[in-house]
């Protein structure tokens, strides 16, 4: 039991750091940095926990980013800052960067070495994962604010 708690804590810390690091690349105002860290930890821990319950990574990513979207909606109304400032830094640990790069590198290898079933399998596997995870993130972040759009008034 203790092992699991330590594992979760470590994961939360190690996913909060990238959220802050990339928030600095995007020049997020310094007052928002701590929320980005918290958001990153929430996003990754939620996905990790869901995947522990044998939920596939795509669905887990969608649910985690929906949660981040809801939390960021609350923060943005409280501190009057556009939501992407919080959300995009927070979902950085969820991004399927490796899948996307592997897919494109495979595509080019297919051109160089000739098409083979193995290369196609790797390409489709990684490409599909990247695209579906990305749409999961996008939809998850958008849903909470779409819910408010019917009032036809600004969120903050």
């Amino acid at each position: 039991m203790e092992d699991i708690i330590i594992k979760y804590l470590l994961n939360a810390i190690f996913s909060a750091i990238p959220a802050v690091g990339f928030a600095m690349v995007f020049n997020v105002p310094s007052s928002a940095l701590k929320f980005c860290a918290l958001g990153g930890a929430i996003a990754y821990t939620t996905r990790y926990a869901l995947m522990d319950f044998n939920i596939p990574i795509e669905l887990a990513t969608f649910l985690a980013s929906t949660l981040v979207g809801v939390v960021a909606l609350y923060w943005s109304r409280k501190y009057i800052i556009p939501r992407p400032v919080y959300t995009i830094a927070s979902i950085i640990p969820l991004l399927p960067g490796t899948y996307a790069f592997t897919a494109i590198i495979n595509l080019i290898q297919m051109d160089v070495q000739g098409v083979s079933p193995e290369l196609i399998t790797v390409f489709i596997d990684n490409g599909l994962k990247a695209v579906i995870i990305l749409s999961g993130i996008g939809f998850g972040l958008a849903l909470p604010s779409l819910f408010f759009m019917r009032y036809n008034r600004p969120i903050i």
Partner: protein
Amino acid sequence: MSKALSYEEQTKITRAIIKAAVLMLEFGAESKLIEDIAKRLGTALGVSSVEVSLIPSAIVLTTLSNKQTQSVTTTRRAHHKPINMSIVCDVQKMCIEVEKNKKNVDFVFQTIKNIRPNHYNKWLVVFMVGLSCACFAYLYGSDINGFIITFLAASVGMYIRQVLARKKFVLIISFISTAFVATLIASLSETFNLSTTPNIVMSASVILLAPGFPFVNSVLDAVKGYLSMGWGRWMQALLLSIATSIGIILAFALLNVKGW
């Protein structure tokens, strides 16, 4: 209803609104936010309605006033710059200030002129990005040597990206060079057998180039009804990913490494 405006006054208001909108588009705000801010600024400054048409490289904006009988239309080209959220926040704050305290057009021009990006210390950013990529390596399951090499590779990569950005190179060129250098350093782990998990090291060191902002913005735009903006940003993000892959492949070809 708003009071009657002369043509000159309305032109000035239109210029102020489109200035704010272009600033937001250039520094990476989502389309819904840009349109909302343009409309709110317009209402606050006294025109009766604002219509905005967005494409990825430009903004067309029309204001209507005097019971819809007088209209001013203007277009501005937007040059995409590295994403900067502090500027977007400042524009939003200015909009709320104009709404709350009934400021006039001159206040908008003055504020936009004075907006300065909030730059973090560049060495701090290099350190944090290096650490971030190292954290990714940990999350993917690398060993301690892999952690250190990733930190090194990503920090050097980020430094190069900053240098190229300061010299105002096109994003694609800076992405190719950054990916090339980061992969070269990361592949040391494989050539010298420093780490047991060279694949993770190499893939984590280029994570700093994953174009998260354009990708997420493209989905946000598309689901909120800005389809052409969504496609435009998707294309932009894809181009940057391809540039990164070219850099990685160049490094692989140089070192004769097979891949991840």
